[in-house]
């Protein structure tokens, strides 16, 4: 701790903390234009200059850590004058078009110009003609740009796209796409979020509303398990007065969103109450043998389904949640705790990461951004173990460990064997490692000794590591043993573990739902899933349900956090609670169940309305609550690694393109919908198909027809099959042996 004074007030700075951050933590104000908390300082605005007693000249507070005993002055007439001059400079030739600018009303330039009372302009410079760029969902107007560099910093340091840069050139400096004419990125829109002025804006939102006309509904993103905090901004449109979501915003100072969260908001349903249809639904439910549902529901709905199971004697099917729970249970049998120990924050702070069994950048962008943060800010060494190399991750990953499809158990055993070489294992555990046939595992998985040695070498200075376990482990035939090995790594090393839940509420469903193993029986009600009678918010169904941005309720995120979400737009039809009420389970509102959620699984008896839903100005995220830890019985029994399976021929991997996750994103008008089967040129040869062919892909009973395109960024003989636009039974291992035939182009 360093003790010093700011404006006469004694304050402390943590190691490495800057004067600016220490001031902010103590509630002391220093003006900034370019500073953003989640990146390294841009240091371009110079507004945060302060004076230090006994030191000549101004000191920049955003990038200077204090020294012991200094006395800082944040405001003096000299500082005020220079800051005012900087604001005058920012205003030089800034177009006077606030009346039509999207940013007006929430513009830092407006705010600071008023704060410093810049009413007149003494300086001029020759104006320049500058072209407005349209980069798809993002538009850029260089004449509004103040070159604060925030966009460039977040794109590189937090997102990892590194897709924009500054074209240096003094007065004519401008933001340009990096290494490309057009913006080529994952279109997260983070650059729009952080832009303090109207330079980078959403092409879709442009000219649609002023900031002050919009209502803000705090919510949790519904597309993946990242649990990102966002606000739907709504306004009535048309003459009937219904609200519509115009855009999504977030507390960009500390949190991030991917493009699906930011641009994929228009998945709300409209329906009217039709009593006849409702009665049919109730009748179907009463006569049902089972309810099959996806994890794209709230905890409260999962709870209602449990009550329905009891009331009606039906079975509950959700393979995604069931397999996740089985994985948790197996892990818990080693760790003694049900919930995984890691979190997105743990990943952000890590200096070493192993991610295995996931195409993580598209499976869960929140994990990707946390990894980018760790890579850039901590220099984390990141091992990416997967059969498919992901170019998006190249500037984050330090070692790509390619393994053969299906050999996950062998690979994690090899990794654990190296990491736990000197660990103080129990006899059984040591026996497990002694029994490993390293030569066989290495040969079958194609992970050589030198790769394991390289991993160990790169982790030599790591003290704070995370193992990220993806869906390929959870849905693996040997998931239980894999989970136990992961548990061992966590138990005996500095590694924490993150088991990535596939859907927005896989974890919540896994904890709450009393699930049965799925089976092909008749009279199954599908809720957001396949069934003989369907209720759905995702696709056309017998009875339409409210989408997840039209419901109150909670999800459990990857961070083991119970997060509230709210109604952004009105839904005129029925809810699951209405149907349950008709079946004798009566509560007026779904969120009345929030306080009843499974206490045995770590939930708390808290009213929905008592849950906070914002990220505070100091970055603290106290949304909802963290689940309580659940102690579990442990075992030291680990099965020997079984024979590793082989996947020969053309293999297809279920993996979505960026920004696509599910039927919601598929419906969102701003999101690109690349529904092709993508494979390398090598794959094309192996499958005897060519770029542009329409193909039929048969995968163990699942048949899909798609266009095939050669993607030069891919290597090897595994093609990527999107799932956002088709229904793939939950719980399937994502690699599929496939039979691909060319079909005529109709």
């Amino acid at each position, binding site marked *: 701790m360093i003790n010093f004074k700011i404006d006469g007030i004694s304050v402390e700075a943590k190691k490495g903390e800057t004067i600016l951050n220490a001031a902010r933590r103590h509630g002391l104000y220093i003006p900034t234009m370019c500073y953003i908390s989640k990146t390294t300082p841009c240091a371009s605005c110079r507004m945060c200059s302060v004076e230090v007693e006994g030191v000549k000249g*101004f000191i920049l507070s955003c990038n200077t850590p204090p020294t012991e005993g200094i006395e800082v002055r944040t405001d003096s007439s000299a500082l005020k004058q220079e800051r005012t001059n900087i604001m005058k400079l920012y205003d030089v030739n800034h177009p006077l078009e606030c009346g039509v600018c999207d940013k007006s009303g929430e513009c830092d330039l407006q705010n600071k110009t008023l704060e410093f009372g810049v009413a007149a302009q003494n300086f001029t410079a020759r104006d320049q003609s500058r072209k407005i760029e349209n980069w798809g969902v993002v538009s850029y107007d260089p004449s509004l740009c103040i070159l604060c560099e925030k966009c460039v910093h977040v794109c590189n340091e937090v997102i990892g796209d590194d897709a924009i840069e500054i074209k240096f050139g003094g007065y004519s400096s401008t933001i340009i796409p990096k290494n490309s004419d057009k913006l080529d990125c994952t279109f997260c829109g983070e650059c729009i979020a952080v832009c303090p002025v109207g330079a980078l804006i959403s092409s879709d939102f442009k000219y649609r509303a002023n900031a002050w006309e919009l209502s803000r509904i705090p919510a949790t993103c519904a597309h993946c398990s990242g649990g990102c905090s966002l606000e739907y901004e709504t306004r009535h449109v048309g003459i009937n007065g219904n609200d519509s979501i115009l855009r999504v915003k977030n507390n960009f100072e500390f949190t991030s969103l991917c493009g699906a969260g930011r641009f994929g908001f228009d998945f709300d349903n409209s329906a009217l109450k039709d009593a006849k249809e409702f009665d049919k639904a109730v009748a179907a439910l009463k006569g049902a043998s089972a309810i099959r549902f996806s994890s794209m529901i709230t905890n409260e709905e999962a709870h209602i389904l449990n009550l329905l199971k009891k009331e009606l004697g039906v079975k509950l099917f959700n393979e995604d949640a069931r397999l996740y729970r089985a994985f948790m249970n197996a892990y818990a049998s080693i760790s003694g705790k049900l919930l995984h120990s890691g979190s997105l924050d743990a990943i952000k702070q890590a200096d070493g990461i192993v991610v295995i069994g996931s195409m993580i950048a598209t499976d869960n962008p929140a994990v990707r951004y946390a990894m980018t943060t760790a890579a850039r800010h901590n220099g984390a060494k990141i091992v990416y173990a997967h059969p498919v190399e992901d170019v998006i991750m190249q500037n984050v990953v330090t070692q790509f460990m390619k393994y053969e499809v299906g050999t996950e158990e062998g690979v994690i055993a090899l990794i654990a064997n190296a990491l736990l070489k000197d660990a103080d294992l129990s006899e059984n555990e040591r026996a497990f490692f002694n029994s490993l046939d390293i030569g066989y595992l290495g040969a079958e998985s194609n992970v050589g000794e030198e790769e394991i040695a390289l991993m160990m070498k790169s982790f030599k200075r790591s003290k704070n590591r995370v193992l990220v376990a993806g869906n390929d482990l959870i849905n693996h035939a040997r998931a239980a043993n894999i989970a136990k090995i992961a548990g061992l790594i966590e138990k005996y090393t500095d590694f924490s573990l993150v088991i990535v839940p596939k859907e927005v509420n896989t974890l919540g469903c896994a904890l709450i739902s009393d699930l049965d193993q799925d089976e092909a029986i008749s009279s199954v009600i599908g809720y957001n899933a396949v069934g003989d009678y369907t209720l759905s918010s995702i696709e056309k169904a017998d009875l339409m349900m409210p989408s997840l941005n039209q419901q109150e309720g909670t999800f459990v995120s990857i961070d083991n956090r119970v997060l509230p979400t709210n109604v952004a737009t009105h839904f005129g039809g029925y809810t699951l609670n209405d149907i349950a009420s008709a079946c004798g389970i009566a509560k007026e509102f779904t969120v009345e169940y929030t306080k009843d959620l499974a206490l045995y699984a770590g939930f708390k008896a808290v009213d929905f309305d008592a849950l906070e839903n914002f990220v505070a100005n100091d970055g603290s995220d106290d949304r909802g609550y963290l689940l309580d830890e659940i102690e579990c019985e442990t075992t030291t029994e680990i099965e020997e690694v079984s024979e590793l399976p082989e996947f020969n021929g053309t293999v297809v991997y279920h993996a979505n393109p960026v920004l696509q996750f599910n039927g919601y994103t598929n419906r969102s008008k701003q999101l690109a919908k690349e529904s092709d089967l993508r494979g390398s040129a090598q794959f094309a040869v192996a499958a005897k198909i060519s770029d542009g062919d329409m193909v039929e892909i048969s995968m163990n009973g699942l048949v899909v027809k798609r266009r095939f395109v050669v993607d030069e960024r891919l290597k090897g003989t595994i093609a990527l099959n999107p799932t956002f636009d088709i229904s793939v039974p939950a719980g399937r291992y994502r690699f599929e042996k496939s039979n691909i035939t060319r079909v005529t182009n109709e």
Partner: protein
Amino acid sequence: MSKVYFSTWMGELINNLNKPEEEWEQSAYNLPAQYDSHRESKAFIGWDGVALFDKDVDVIRLAMEYAAQYQEYSEACGRCAPGRWGGRILYDMLDKIARGEGSVADMDHLKEIGKSMQATSKCEIGKTVPNPILDLMTHFEDEFMACINEKKPSKHYNAQVGYIAKITAPCTDACPAHVDIPAYIEGVRDLRFDDSLMATRQTMPLAHTCGRVCPHPCEEACRRTNLDEPISIMALKRLGADYETDHGFGFFHPMEKKADTGKRVAVVGAGPAGLTTAYYLAAEGIAVDVYEELPVLGGEVTVGVPEYRMPWDKYAKDIECVRDMGVNFIMNHRVSKDDMRRFESEYDATMIASGTRISKKVYCENERPEITGYWGAIDFLDRVNLCEKFGYKLTPEQRKEYAIDNEYVDLRGKTLACVGGGFTSMDVVRCAIRAGAKKVIMLYRRDEKTIIRNTTYEEYHEAVEEGVEFIFHSAVAKIVDEDNVLKKLIVDRYELVPDPNGGRPQLEKIEGASFELEVDYLIPAVSQSADLKFLPEEWELEMTSWATLKTNGKDYMTSRKGIFASGDCEYGPMTIVNAVGQAKRAASVMARYVQTGEITLSDEEIMEDHLRKLKVYNKKEKITGWLPGLPRQHSEILPVDERRDNNKEVNLGFTQEEALSEAERCMRCYYIAMIAT
């Protein structure tokens, strides 16, 4: 001393206005009054003032053109609000006055904006650009006011005047390779490691290497020293290179390779100078063949510098980067006189970069190379490194010659003495420790302070930790052998005797203090000389008194047209960065030479030499606008018992946290200098 008409350089005020020329007061500084052989300078304007060499200079336009240069030089500006807009406003207003359209208010606004830039700009370039402009406005106010009042253009507003500008920085100026150090540090600070690496590679292709084993003369010229401690400049270079390597990217070249020119250059030697020449020539679209005598590439950095200091896998990346530019390497080829004659006809130019590969003698009694146990440092290190890095085993003949009972250099049970004091001798003794020697002694004529100055504090300190015994003020007087096998040394002791006349203290032998040292090996590592026997005698290349190839130190052409020389064979045994700097310059000269047949320097290079002479770093300058007392970061060193018996890299480099806080200390001391001709 320079003859000036007017100067405010470095705070001096010389004003010879209205004085007859013979009474002119002179400037105390080496100002560039003569631009090049055929052009005089009319004025020099820079970060710390302005000097006029001629009465007839249009000072208003000079100020305006200087502001214009600040606009031009995008590499260093456009990064902060005061600089970006302020710089433009300075230029626009000065131009307005120079055009004859200015007003009195413009003068005030210029002063106000200049003051804001000085106080708040991000880097020194923004802070210092107003300095000479404000000087001119103060001292030549009449001229400015005349233009304003009479609404007339400045006196040479429309005349053809050459304005040649150059961006520099104290560290960049002091670096022999003139690496754009603030840019690569900024890349680290902004976590844009690709940009960092490309900034380095503009003038220095060996980023991994010079991020590890450079003696960093730049740090001697770091302005941060004036405030607290210098930036750890060298260690920050490594981050960009590690980023490229760790993530398996292709090579980030800072330039696009130009189309094939049809020209060809031969390079003798694949050490740092040869590699550098090849890289920059290849980038210019010139076909380059590099001839290397050894079975491995990289020269002394490969076979001289040990693995624990410069891991081969990292240096190999630097070499691959050069190859990636399209350079052709021919290994195991010892160039002969006939080759050289052939090169002259087959290639458009030839670069000699053969280094200094002959260990000099220590000059003592009975110093005969045939004595077993007398082992030249270069040869010793060759054997150690070829074995450790590449697995080349000692041949039976070599084992006999060196009296080694193993396939590698195994010194277990042996005592080794090394005579030296520079980097090579440090490499010898530390390798000897790693080879298991029972006892390792360094004999050095001078004292501890000098050995640290000649190497680095870390190098000396680590050697001591590892168990090297240093005997200072000592020199070998005689080698004692039995049947041509080394037995012992007679060592004289010396002391420093102050010169009663106030001159440098002299080393004098202490009579009767000599002693005997029983040793198995004596490694002379006092210095090296160039082996230039492959040069055709009839060329009669001019040599220096140190028996190295003579050039003018600016264009690096030898006395024979089309034959160039760089690196140690030109300068004598010196640093990697020196070799790189020479070779980079030479490559630039050669690229023009093969096209035009003429030897020229670019304006950039002429300015570089002027500034080097003037010296950019001013160690007396008082630093303002930065908080003093932020400590320099030190990277982790492998503990002595984890490194003494192996070749693991000793310096683990910065953690990201250390690197960032170190980079954050950099003050970005960019400056612009400009000459009017």
